[in-house]
């Protein structure tokens, strides 16, 4: 494996990890919003 291959693979792994973590953060945000909204509906009623 050459330097170039190694760097390319490492960049690929880093991008995949970033996308996965960003996706998890977005998912937790969306879940929190849904839970808050549901609780708010219960409180109003």
């Amino acid at each position, binding site marked *: *494996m050459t330097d170039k291959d190694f760097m390319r693979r490492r960049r690929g792994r880093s991008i995949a990890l970033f996308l996965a973590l960003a996706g998890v953060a977005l998912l937790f945000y969306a879940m929190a919003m849904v839970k808050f909204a549901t609780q708010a509906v219960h409180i109003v009623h």
Partner: protein
Amino acid sequence: MSATTSIAGLPSSTAGDWLQLLKPRVLVLVVYTAVAGLAMAPDPLHPVLAFAAILAITVAAGAAGALNMWFDRDIDAVMSRTARRPIPAGRIGPGEAFAFGVVLAVASVMVMGLATNLMAASWLALSILFYVLVYTVWLKRRTAQNIVIGGAAGAFPPIIGWVAATGHLALLPVLMFAIVFVWTPPHFWSLALYASGDYARAGVPMLPVVSGARVTRANILAYTVLLAATSVAPWLLGLTGPVYGVVALALGVRFMWHAARVWRDQADASGRSRRNDAAARAAFRFSILYLFVLFGALVADRLVFHSAGLHVWVG
């Protein structure tokens, strides 16, 4: 810095290798049956939470697959079908794969618990533990009934999908579990018939290795008849409409036809197929189509005849 001296010894995994650890082809079936369980549930679930639940089930199944590959790395290296997997091929270290699997397993159960309910998270944790401890560690290398009992692990997703939406268990998801459970032996044994050399080399006591091809063919037929009977149970018990009933009957007859072809396959004195296991290969391919169409019909039937039961969350 020289490429050959400083970098050659470092792990050369790609993002695709890590994805391969999750057994993506198996995940398709897991997601499909989990979505079916979720769709059949009478209680609505917000789309965001439903997405989180399906994602959690998918990641949990992937984590179980990664832990399976970690534990089975020695036999994977021996079998031609699995020798190119990331661990035996040396692209990912065993310790890394184990950590990856454990982190994903814990995270998936946590997300399921936060998104839906503790009951669903518990079922999800049970499915991971069952696949890793009961099937992979305990049964796979000890008994020819490994995939019969271990098949339960792959049958959990419809139950988890249902419980994620409702918080409790009911008869229909149990029947969906039973269908996948009974479907697993003829599905895997069809594959094992033409991959038995691989399993024998690795010392895995699959039924064709332990009892021979003839016994395996008879068992495939027996389980397929049982599957055909189990698949119509939701209809006979009034839990589904005629669309599902007709499709289940037709698929059952077709699968039994395939199983009968496997059973009657021309074999030599040792029971090995003279036709390169063409019937077993066809039965294996059909078994995948069978489950997709059957569960598709289950959901379609609910949409057509029991639309009141299939809720779209409207806030």
